[in-house]
């Protein structure tokens, strides 16, 4: 067997044998049987949810082995953050998990606050919970949309994006940006919620349950959907734990683990919500978990909105939060703080901390090491997609190649977060 290979930039087409291709590019994994077919799926494949390349060894239609090839989106975010002050580095966290920038912001901001030994105000906490849960709904909408589209359910895709658009519009109201919000800041949030936000949110809470019911009608008991998702890509609870899975991938296997319950942050312990669990740990259970999570998130949003405390949205610490604009014209001290914070930033003490939050995809952790300067000495993110992707071979082995897209969809990976 030979493969034709186009040389980049020139017109010559070179013929390479399989051995030569392997010598040149590698296969990322040991090959079971030389007779099997090697399939390279991605990196520009619509159902790999980004730029993920999968090398799949196929025996007929059955997957014998598979290896994910990642790194196409590597942007050096962790390293770049070391060259910025704590505040300026925050804009990069938006760009990791581009489907849940609010959650990334929250993880990073909480880590900075922990390192600095400060907190935020009650109002800021409630705003954070509200927006992060909105983000969870929007992220799950994209997951549901693309997951369903991969299994050829087109209308769900269109409806989900319609609702997500509404949420992005809400984000635009509060932060001025639809996706790259940078809205949470160490010590609080950027600005208070605008007036137009309240009515718009209430409208969202009014129409969303009916829209969710639509998705349920289209998918929940649909025999075609069931056939494509039931008993596919099963992982047991123990296996899921040993792989380090988090989020719906873990809870789909019936393991009760949610950071919001285990180590609450932003006052999650004062909210009333449940952690939905699956039983079998197949694609369908993970789908159910996320849908139930969306219902829980809607209730959390309502709770946060109803109890929204009044008061300031930033702590009164001029060493971390820039002074309000109204003071600049009259107070020299405010001007000095303003200039100091925007040029040098604040100095974090020596030491390291780890802060985890429950992002839409699972445990999003931020490891931060300060060396006494205004820039972090090391930033590292424990991103859920990265860990969840690692068990893809385990999930997919023995299934048909057509099921692979369903399995990838059910792990809900975001490549920006994996490669970062």
């Amino acid at each position, binding site marked *: 067997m030979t493969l034709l290979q186009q040389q980049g930039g020139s017109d010559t087409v070179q013929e390479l044998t399989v051995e030569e291709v392997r010598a040149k590019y590698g296969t990322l994994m040991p090959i079971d049987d030389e007779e099997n077919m090697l399939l390279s799926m991605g990196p520009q494949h619509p159902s790999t949810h980004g730029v993920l390349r999968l090398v799949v060894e196929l025996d007929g239609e059955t997957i014998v082995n598979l290896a994910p090839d990642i790194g196409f989106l590597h942007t050096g975010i962790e390293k770049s953050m070391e060259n910025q002050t704590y505040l300026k580095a925050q804009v*990069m966290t938006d760009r990791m998990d581009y489907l849940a920038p609010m959650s990334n912001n929250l993880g990073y901001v909480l880590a900075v606050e922990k390192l600095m030994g400060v907190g935020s105000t009650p109002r800021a906490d409630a705003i954070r919970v509200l927006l992060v849960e909105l983000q969870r709904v929007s992220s799950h909408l994209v997951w549901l949309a693309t997951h369903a589209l991969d299994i050829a359910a087109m*209308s769900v895709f269109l409806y989900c994006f319609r609702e997500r658009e509404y949420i992005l519009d809400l984000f*635009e109201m509060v932060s001025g940006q639809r996706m790259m919000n940078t809205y949470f800041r160490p010590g609080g949030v950027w600005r208070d919620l605008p007036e137009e936000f309240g009515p718009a949110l209430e409208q969202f809470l009014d129409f969303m349950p009916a829209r969710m019911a639509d998705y349920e009608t289209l998918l929940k008991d649909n025999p*075609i959907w069931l056939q494509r998702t039931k008993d596919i890509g099963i992982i047991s609870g123990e296996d899921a734990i040993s792989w380090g899975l988090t989020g719906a991938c873990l809870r789909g296997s019936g393991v009760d683990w949610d950071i919001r319950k285990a180590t609450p942050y932003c006052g999650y312990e004062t909210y009333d919500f449940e952690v939905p669990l699956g039983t079998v740990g197949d694609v369908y259970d993970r789908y159910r978990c996320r849908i139930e999570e969306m219902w829980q998130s809607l209730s959390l949003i309502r709770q946060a909105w109803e109890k929204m405390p009044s008061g300031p949205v930033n702590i009164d610490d001029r060493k971390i939060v820039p002074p*309000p604009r109204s003071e600049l*014209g009259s107070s020299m001290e405010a001007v000095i703080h*303003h*200039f100091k914070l925007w*040029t040098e930033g604040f100095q974090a003490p020596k030491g390291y901390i780890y802060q985890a939050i429950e992002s839409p995809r699972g445990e999003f952790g931020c490891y931060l090491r300060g060396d006494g300067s205004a820039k972090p000495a090391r930033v590292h993110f424990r991103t859920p997609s990265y860990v969840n992707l690692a068990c893809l071979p385990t999930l997919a082995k023995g299934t048909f190649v057509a099921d692979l897209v369903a399995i990838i969809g059910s792990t809900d990976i975001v490549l920006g977060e994996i490669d970062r």
Partner: protein
Amino acid sequence: MSLFDDLKKSVFFQVPAGMATTLKHVFKPPITIRYPDVKRPVRYRYKGRHHLRRYDNGLEKCIGCSLCAAACPADAIFVEASENTDEERYSPGERYASTYEINMLRCIFCGYCEDACPTEAIQLGHDYELAYYDRASAIYTKGMLIDMPINGMPSTPRQTEPGVFTQSIPDMEDPK
């Protein structure tokens, strides 16, 4: 499971139910807009292309302090300051920006420059149609960024009375 449940989960019920849901949407107005003929309105806080603002009296707000450049995470801003004189005054206070450039290819529209500016001189506006044929035209110079003076006020530089415009940082309100 009862017979009714069986029936409810069968293709004969589920597929028509799904069809009914999609059919419902056929009669709804489309939610897409015909961009570029119709433009999507943006929200008040939207962070689009920058503007350099002026006071009502026509003087420039920017005092060339370079705080925006220091705060920019993408290093997109370049500021060069020069001295104001009462014969040739651009802005209140001692200095003004003689060169002000934003590289829109670098800018990530985070709004830090707006937050950092002590005089509300640089503000992110509502234009989002930014596309260029070459890299050079992505660099917005001061002339492209600065607003026109309103109410027929004279532009800058201009001659002013000595000792009037000394305060560089004005009294401001907290932004909404």
